[in-house]
């Protein structure tokens, strides 16, 4: 099993690590049982994701996909943000070893969970959002 250079770069220099004090939406997915937990903070202004931060407990793949997913979502409208899938993140990273693909699913789930939290807090309906499953 070997990670490519892009994955290693995002793992060793993860972008957007941290928290957002007054986040518009926060989503936590995964659990210690499976080994990866990802928490995403979004700052949404108007209809646009202005900032994203994450904290992740997990393997190299989990950290790298968290980093890439937050990179991808910043600057996107909510509608565009919902188009970001597990595959988008995987492709942007140039792929993961097959045993590690499952770890990347959390990124998509975490983004959705944070957007869901934003919708709940603001009492709005976001078309096409996946309701997060309670796992934590």
């Amino acid at each position, binding site marked *: *099993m070997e*990670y490519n250079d892009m994955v*290693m770069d995002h*793992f*060793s220099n*993860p972008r957007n*690590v941290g*928290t957002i004090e007054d986040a518009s939406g926060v989503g*936590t997915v995964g659990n*210690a*049982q*499976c*080994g*990866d*937990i*990802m*928490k995403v903070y979004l700052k949404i202004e108007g209809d646009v994701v202005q900032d994203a931060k*994450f*904290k*992740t*407990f*997990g*393997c*190299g*793949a*989990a*950290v790298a996909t968290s980093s890439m997913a937050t990179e991808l979502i910043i600057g996107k409208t909510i509608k565009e943000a919902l188009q970001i899938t597990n595959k988008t993140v995987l492709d942007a990273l140039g792929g993961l*070893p097959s*045993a*590690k693909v*499952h*770890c990347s699913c959390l990124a998509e789930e975490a983004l959705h969970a944070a957007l869901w939290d934003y919708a709940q807090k603001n009492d709005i309906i976001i078309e096409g959002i996946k309701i997060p499953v309670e796992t934590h």
Partner: protein
Amino acid sequence: MNPPKKVLYFDNAATTPLHPKVLEHMMPYLTEQYGNPSGVYSFAREVRKGIEHAREQVAEAIFARPGEIFFTSSGTEANNWVLKGVVETLQHKGGHIITTAIEHHAITHVSSALSKQGVEITYLPVDNEGFVSPSDLIAAIRPDTILISIMWANNEIGTIQPIPELSAIAKSRGVLFHTDAVQAVGHIPVNVENLPIDFLTMSAHKFSGPKGVGALYIRKGTKVNSILFGGAQEKNRRAGTENVAGIIGMGAALNLAVANLKEEQEKVTMLRDYLIERIETTIPKVALNGPRAENTRLPGNVNFSFDYIEGESLLLLLDMQGCCASSGSACSSASLEPSHVLLSLGISHEKAHGSIRFSLGRENTREEIDQLMEILPKQVKQLRAMSPLAEEAETSKAEYEL
């Protein structure tokens, strides 16, 4: 290709570097001494002599007789041989095997395959340091129990089982006793002479010998069916042209290991205790996995759970600094399950995922441990800074203190 940079090698339980003297002994058998040991001409008989000498060396190291040593392709094969072979040999008596919850996969995956064929397996639990309780063993023995297989020492957490006591129980109930001693032989005293052990597994690459060669000790007179059929090698009990150089290397390596056993054991134990102390005094929120009492833990085994971080990510950071270790986290395995050994101790999934094993060997030095301790605390800090679990713990602590 760049020359390999100097590695800090702390994964001696996975495998050890080949001892240069062992390679010297092996070289002729990889070059001019190429005869098939089964040949009748004197050129081949020389090779046969080499193999028999290695058999004597292995036997002597564990106080067995040469006729009780059978070379195999690995520790894995030796374990397969005992479990599958005894199930066949004793099928008239029954189909119940007792083993433990913390065996290596070379036992547990064999026993789960056997259970699909109708063999019943009892997995003895262990306490929070990894010890099997003799009274649990007594309670688990049934009239149809055909084999008890308990590892001498655990590869992940280093626990050394009370083998004299456990094997005596088996003997008193008339049940065959096997021990996977792959992590013990060559590192701590192993003596089958005065112990009622029927089968014992060894593997050369764990004591500075070559990979791909192991041996099974079978007490004289003990019946066990073969699992490999073909030529008449190994007294007709294990077919296949011998891995000659490997066998020579195994004999030479074990001979060296036992000749220096006491000094090496003391030296490695001191390094181990030094590393444990350094980690415990410099890194907060760590927990040693496995036992602490004297002579109950393998000399080279250090296994810690680092709160709030996941093992693989720490391994990757260590690797970037040229440091080799291993983890009980199994994020890379399809099962998503962390080490069954760590979970058997009763620790949480989170702590099991956050475990790192440093296994020290005869080549490690105090300076190397100091080098490790220059990087490890920073890396743990770095990963904790991005851990949602550390953040959670901080918040709840803050709330508690308010």
